[in-house]
């Protein structure tokens, strides 16, 4: 058991079959995964609680993050925004900063990007990756 720091965590995006680190990332929100359930309540249920049962499937959800956006940087301009001009699936990897550099690998099917221009801040971009399936959790 350890308290893992966040500094040193790296998000990698596949470019030309090689996993390349995304520059100037400030924060990451891990995929909000959820196992799917259905409500199996019945008229003769005497309990106040509403029962649910898993369907056996799980939603990978979305991973998102924030970065200092450089509109002239190839890694931002071409690699990230390129997923909007030419939508395609892309393999992403989050490399954690723990001792063993644990990884979560997932396929992104969708991508969204926005940003904020503010007088008192650096230029920031926000992105979101829609997962196809679940991440692979390295051991």
């Amino acid at each position, binding site marked *: 058991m*350890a308290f*893992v*720091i966040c*500094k*040193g*965590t*790296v998000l*990698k995006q*596949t*470019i*030309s*079959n*090689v*996993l*390349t*680190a*995304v*520059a*100037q990332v*400030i924060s990451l929100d891990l995929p909000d995964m959820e196992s799917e359930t259905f409500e199996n309540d019945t008229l003769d249920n005497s309990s106040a609680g509403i029962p649910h049962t898993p369907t056996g499937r799980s939603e990978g959800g979305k991973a998102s993050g924030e970065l*200092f956006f450089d509109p002239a940087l*190839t*890694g931002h301009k*071409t*690699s990230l925004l390129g997923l909007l001009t030419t939508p395609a699936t892309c*393999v992403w*990897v989050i*490399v954690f*900063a*723990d*001792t063993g550099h644990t990884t979560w*690998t997932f396929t992104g099917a969708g991508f969204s990007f926005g940003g904020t221009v503010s007088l008192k801040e650096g230029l920031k971009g926000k992105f979101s990756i829609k997962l196809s399936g679940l991440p*692979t959790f390295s051991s």
Partner: protein
Amino acid sequence: MKCKLLLAMNRTPDAADGRSLLPAGEIIEHPDAFRLVQIGCAEPADDECATSHGMTAEQLAAARHAYVRTAAGIWPEDFAAFDAGMMTGYSPDGSPIPGPNYVEPQEEDEEEPDDE
């Protein structure tokens, strides 16, 4: 189109040959190989790649330096320390890993109490 990796890099896990780690010097053949050059993790390995990246030597040098910094997971607030060679990355406890230009901080002289 071909480029040559400047540092060891991981490959997409579903790569056909099953290799996950590509060593520095590995030749990558891909229609978008020039993008690895633009990002700063590779150099051109054929004429097509050399004419496709569209960057000056200074821009390429800056991209290479920035990529090493990015791959090490350096946070923006530590860019200056990394660029100055004061640190190379982070230890698992979050402390910076000293770089070649790291200088041990001088201990401040403790003031002796006045004997009055």
